């Protein structure tokens, strides 16, 4: 039982904090969100040089062998800085999936390049009508002539526009909704038959719908075993959720700081509005929510490394559902306590609020995970 960061972790934290303060101010971030790419290629290179992009990978693949707590630490700061780079998609989920499920040669070829920032991945695991159900896969994978043919559509694939490769879940057998019969494929975004309909997201990132028209793949494009793709995808998504939980906790903390400062500086009726007890108690509620949310993010970060899938799923769904509600409280109240200043684009408050809202709607919202938690004994 130990709640302290190691010295390495604290060093990493400080480096990243310095980087955000120096190179990732609110104005720069807004410019990046408006840019075509939607994030900073320079920042991405810096993450590589800081080792962030290889953090979770084992040493033998040029990684730092980091664990869930290391990712929590990074993602919390990603939240505070509202970082736009596809870290979660490319490193935590994409790279994590390669590491967890791909064959040895592929790992050896890809992980170092991901870590070096030369390669970006995106996870294409949701489809129309499935909402957040990972087994709702209609996209087909047919084995023919020594290779695979993929056809279908994946929706709202986060960070797809900038990804070199997509990790696509497709149905190699069974019916839509079956847990078995889902296989996982590595598809070059530029491959013939792959089409993207790209758009920005409500919180400044990028995503796309992906069309797959009879896309031809080699046999070795298959990641893991045929028909056994669901559990690695669930694992990868759970890694992503743990990351989102930490990101949300970083934003919650930042919003509480901003709101507290506003309460102390904004004067009405001749006094700082923080002198009004109703607002003081609201702020106290927000602090309590932040502490509880942080505890849940710790639970999720530790559970992300758990061997037992049921244990992992339950803890991580619980954390996502709890933090979704805490984020809603803090986000809405931070806006409310900022009054009109909370609903304008020019302050970071509204951007934090929008990001928290989109975090809830990503990789399964509060209701989805509340159900998954409460259905698990």
């Amino acid at each position, binding site marked *: 039982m130990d709640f302290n960061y190691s010295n390495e972790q604290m060093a990493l934290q400080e480096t990243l904090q310095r980087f955000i303060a120096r190179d990732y101010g609110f104005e720069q971030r807004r410019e990046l969100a408006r840019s075509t790419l939607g994030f900073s290629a320079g920042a991405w290179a810096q993450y590589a040089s800081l080792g962030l992009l290889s953090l979770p990978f084992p040493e033998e693949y040029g990684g730092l062998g980091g664990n869930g707590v290391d990712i929590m630490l990074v993602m919390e700061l990603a939240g505070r800085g509202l970082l736009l780079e596809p870290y979660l998609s490319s490193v935590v989920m994409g790279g994590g999936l390669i590491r967890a499920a791909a064959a040895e040669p592929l790992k050896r070829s890809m992980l170092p390049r991901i870590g070096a920032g030369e390669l970006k991945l995106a996870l294409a695991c*949701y489809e*129309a*009508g*499935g*909402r*957040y*159900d990972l087994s*709702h896969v209609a996209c087909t994978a047919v084995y023919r002539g020594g290779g695979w043919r993929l056809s279908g*559509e994946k*929706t*709202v694939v*986060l960070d797809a526009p900038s990804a070199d490769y997509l990790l696509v879940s497709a149905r190699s057998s069974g019916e*839509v*909704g079956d847990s078995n019969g889902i296989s996982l494929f590595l598809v070059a975004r530029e491959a013939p038959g792959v*089409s993207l*309909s790209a*758009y*920005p*997201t*409500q*919180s400044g990132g990028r*995503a796309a*719908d*992906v*069309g797959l028209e009879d896309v031809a793949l080699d046999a070795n494009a298959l990641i893991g075993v045929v028909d056994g793709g669901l559990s690695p995808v669930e694992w990868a998504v759970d890694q992503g959720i743990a990351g989102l939980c930490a990101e949300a906790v970083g934003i919650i903390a930042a919003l509480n700081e901003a709101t507290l400062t506003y309460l102390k500086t904004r*004067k*009405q*009726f*001749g006094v700082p*509005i923080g002198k*009004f007890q*109703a*607002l003081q108690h609201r702020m106290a509620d927000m602090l309590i929510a932040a502490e509880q949310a942080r505890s849940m993010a710790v639970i999720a970060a530790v559970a992300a490394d758990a061997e037992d899938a049921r244990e992992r799923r339950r803890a991580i769904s619980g954390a996502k559902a709890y933090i979704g509600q805490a984020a809603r409280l803090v986000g*809405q109240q931070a*806006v*409310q306590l900022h*009054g*009109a200043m*909370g*609903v*304008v*684009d*020019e302050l970071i408050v*509204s*951007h934090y*609020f*929008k990001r928290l*809202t*989109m975090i809830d*709607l*990503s990789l399964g*919202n509060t*209701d989805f995970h*509340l*159900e998954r938690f409460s259905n698990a004994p």
Partner: protein
Amino acid sequence: MDLKFTPDQEAFRAQVRAFIEAELPADIRARSRLGKRMQKDDMTRWQKILDRHGWGAVMWPQRFGGSGWDVVQQHIFEEERADIGAPPQNAFSLRMLGPVLMTFANAAQQEYFLPRIIAGEDWWCQGYSEPGSGSDLASLRTSAVRQGDHYLVNGQKTWNTLGQYADWIFCLVRTSSEGRPQQGISFLLIDMKSPGITVRPITMLDGEHEINEIWFDNVRVPLQNLVGEENKGWTYAKFLLTHERTNNAGIGFCKRALKKLKEIAAEQLSNGRPLLDDPRFRDRIAQVELELMALEITNLRVLSAVANESRTLGPEVSVLKIKGSEIQQMLAELQMQALGPDALPYLREGLGMDWVPDPLLARHYPPYAPPLSGQYFNLRKTTIYAGSTEIQKNIISQQILGL
């Protein structure tokens, strides 16, 4: 006690509905149904249509050119308007300024301004809040100094809604610094075309331009544009705020939004089945529907009490404002939540009618989707503007509870 509408009222409802169905331009209706961006032109066209029919000011007494309807008739009209999808009328002109002019302005002002409002010739906006004066409105600093036959106005107003469209602005200005801050305030009518006025847009969190900062630099305002007495403006301002809140319950708007929410939840699929079949989501809809059912009756109880006691609305409107704004927010939030992952795309083009989505996107992303997340963000304002929920609770505890 009886909750049924009388046959006369039902007949009136049918008449209202028939008129709106017949007269509301199809393009306006489509825009409002899909939650697309409304244009000033939409509202003005609709105002002129209503005016031609004699319904340009349904909440005004007949002697000022209004329809002179009772509260139940107004409620019915509002309900049908919102349900069919006719745009709201300009509340600043009709709900806020109108009553002030009818009660405190002189005959010349009434004769000039009121008909132009009904005819949709003048678009009014509000000049109340200032950067340093939000909840504490009385601390406002924009000054108006007498100079011969006019006032010289200097200062800055903010959180001004749709001022970019406005022909006129009604302003609270400081004409004296004597005594309590409330005592030195006057109520001025200012032509937006006056030299020295600068309108600077403020982008809202949903990326839209709805509010403005307005700068006054030595703006000359004729003395005859003063409403009532100099330094008595605070009385008129509070009178206006009460009227502003009367419709903040927004029952009609909410009933329409609830219908739409159920339509969306029936159409959106979760794991291949309609989201409406998910007991968890259906419970959330049920909870807000119950709040709305209750508020509709609470609203009518307040209005009929006011009518019986033939008095103006009191602090009880704070109850309606608090609940009404919360319900609007809950409905918008559930509409966004109903989209699930499809709430993530930010497609501004989708706010226009002429937008044609990429076919790949169009297969799962319905035409009503683009505005929903932005609307949830935008409606956070409802518990902030027109007296924040915190201010409303202060009013309740002081003026109703006597604490």
